[in-house]
């Protein structure tokens, strides 16, 4: 019989705080290749274990092993590496541009490049992503022009969103990238609605929903799971578990009690955990989930286990809440280094070629940046017009807005 004394309030704490030694010994890392690959029509009840394991393809020696390996050609892998390297370089340049005052704000993907870059290659043209602010790899891997991304970040005269949106809140219907909102989790249920619409229309296109570990605590995460499950919507429900939601560790969103993937199980949704720093594993699982959706088998929930190596945003200093060297201790390593080592192991890549590619990519990104800056930056050069502020709210401008636009002198 437990002691029925005074109640005590429980608040989870991360294992280590600044000044401490990083410790991920509580994160069990299964061996690469150890997770079986079921048929897409599998009864979800028989694969519940997959929500508690981590599906990995690349082993310590950089070899691709197990039933989820072998889906990509060397050429595709080299392209994937280039996408991740481009995103990382893009991030570094834009982070620097923010520090130089050329824009107000930026958010990096450091350490999470494989998730969005590899996922994008599993989708077909016409599919729609409903991303958060940390999946720009979906655009990079789909060939969206970097100059246009930068124009948006600089809110300049060539900004496709006319200066109305905070930097990095991109939108591109053409590239299957739904308009990003600042409100967390809202897009998760919208993705399900888009997928429902595709099914209602007897279409063949599918949707992908994106959310972070912290935002799974939002109500719309639950809404999305209920709707996706009820209507068997053709949607991939992605959870990017990078361990941190600004300063709060994933335990505050109640990670650690089961897994984020396991939250799909109560809805009968097949739910998998993947090594988010393993380009091959991310791609393989995304492809499996996409095939399920396209075959009218309904939603799949995928948790990508990764680590937010950078600051939350350009306004954040992680050393205030976690050890500075924590990302070095992360047991799943760096996605770029791991794919690079795999390609070297395959004999199609080398340290020299890698260094050369890094230099080439940097040149390309700098050239794009120069072009974007010729259209202006936040405080200098060309900018969207004041008139743009009033336009485009409604299909047709209502009288009260027209009056206000006149008052503003435009």
């Amino acid at each position, binding site marked *: 019989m437990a002691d029925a004394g005074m109640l005590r309030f429980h608040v989870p704490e991360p294992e280590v705080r600044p000044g401490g030694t990083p410790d991920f010994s509580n994160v069990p890392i299964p061996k690469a290749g150890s997770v079986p690959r079921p048929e897409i029509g599998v009864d979800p009840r028989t694969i519940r274990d997959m929500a508690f394991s981590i599906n990995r393809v690349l082993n310590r020696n950089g070899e691709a092993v197990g039933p989820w390996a072998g889906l990509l050609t060397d050429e595709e892998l080299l392209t994937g590496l280039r996408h991740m390297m481009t995103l990382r370089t893009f991030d570094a340049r834009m982070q620097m541009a923010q520090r130089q005052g050329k824009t107000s704000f930026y958010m990096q993907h450091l350490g999470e490049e494989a998730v969005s870059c590899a996922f994008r290659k599993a989708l077909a043209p016409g599919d*729609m992503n*409903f991303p958060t602010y940390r999946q720009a790899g979906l655009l990079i891997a789909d060939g969206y022009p970097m100059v246009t991304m930068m124009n948006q970040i600089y809110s300049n005269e060539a900004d*496709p*969103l*006319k200066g*109305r*949106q905070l930097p990095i*809140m991109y*939108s*591109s*219907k053409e590239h299957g990238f*739904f*308009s990003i*909102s*600042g*409100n967390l989790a*809202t897009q*998760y*249920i*919208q*993705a*399900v*609605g*888009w*997928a*429902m*619409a*595709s*099914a*209602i*229309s007897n279409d063949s296109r599918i*949707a992908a929903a994106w959310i972070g570990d912290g935002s799974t605590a939002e*109500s*719309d995460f*639950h*809404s*999305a799971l*209920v*709707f996706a499950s*009820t209507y068997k919507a053709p949607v991939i429900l992605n959870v990017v578990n990078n361990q941190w939601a600004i300063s709060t560790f994933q335990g505050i969103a109640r990670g650690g009690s089961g897994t984020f993937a396991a939250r799909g199980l109560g809805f009968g949704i097949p739910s998998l955990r993947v090594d988010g720093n393993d380009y091959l594993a991310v791609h393989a699982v995304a492809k499996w989930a996409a095939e399920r959706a396209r075959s009218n088998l309904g939603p799949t929930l995928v948790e990508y286990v990764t680590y937010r190596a950078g600051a939350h945003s350009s306004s954040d200093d992680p050393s205030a809440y976690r050890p500075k060297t924590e990302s070095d201790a992360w047991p799943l390593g760096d996605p770029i280094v791991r794919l690079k080592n795999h390609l070297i192991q395959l004999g199609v890549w080398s340290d020299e070629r890698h260094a050369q590619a890094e230099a080439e990519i940097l040149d390309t990104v700098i050239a794009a940046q120069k072009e974007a800056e010729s259209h202006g930056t936040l405080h200098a050069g060309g900018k969207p017009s004041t008139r743009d502020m009033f336009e*485009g*709210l*409604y*299909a047709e401008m*209502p*009288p*009260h807005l027209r009056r206000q636009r006149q008052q503003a002198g435009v």
Partner: protein
Amino acid sequence: MPRRTMIEAIRDAMDVSMGRDERVVVFGEDVGFFGGVFRCTQGLQAKYGKSRCFDAPINESGIVGSAIGMAAYGLKPCVEIQFADYMYPAYDQLTQEASRLRYRSNGDFTCPIVVRMPTGGGIFGGQTHSQSPEALFTHVSGLKTVVPSNPHDAKGLLIAAIEDPDPVIFLEPKRLYNGPFDGHHDRPVTPWSKHELGEVADGHYTVPLGKAAIRRAGSAVTVLAYGTMVYIAQAAAEETGIDAEIIDLRTLLPLDLDTIVASVKKTGRCVVVHEATLTSGFGAELSALVQENCFYHLEAPVARVAGWDTPYPHAQEWDYFPGPARVGRALIETIEA
């Protein structure tokens, strides 16, 4: 011309719209097989199938959020929130998402949804079946807000709302579902079959959004009202003998300011009436607009008659609801001011 109740008119509007455009889908709690707790969607599932009209989980944010995704895909969802009092879980989706999707994506994505919600009191609905939250929508840039007061308008406005390329909040005064209500709760209610505005044409027609209707022409005072309050104002004018010009706004945003200003410039006086609570209610916006646009024509302060600044009570229904006696007093005071 056939006469229909407001319920039948609203159902007919969805029927006509679904028949004309296969992109129109209808869903919400109890909306499918059962046909809605107010019968507004009765028969639609049987006629158009479960892919076009279906039941939703009890999750308002999910209903509106999924509708936004459908609209982004290219459908035209017309969804129902069972009571306006229960729209709050969807408020995030409505105010931050639906309203801004076109703007923030510079037209890359749009959100042509209609969100129907039964609104208003006078039915002993208590705190969570009586609210009038229109001011919470008119304050949101990017939404349109509509409140019909009769079957003819309800059908025409709803079809117009479904065809509108932007998100529309469609507030249906449930007190008016079966007949007009003048606030005399002690008298039997007349059904719509006895009222000329119960005449609802078959087939397709629209009542344009953003256009008010003058329900009673008058010269002494302008009354700005919408929904159930239109009939309260009419009763108050008759009972006081004051020659009021009663304007049924129909659409709160975009607002038909021209009709309002022309009337107040003619009468020199204005009384604003709504069921919603007074402070920061839509009446405050109307009053300010009249003052700004008609200042030199006003012969009395703009008066507001509204629900008290309390939650909507149960037992005190008729002490709360702004009835013809309260509106009548405001008319007299404004005339005598």
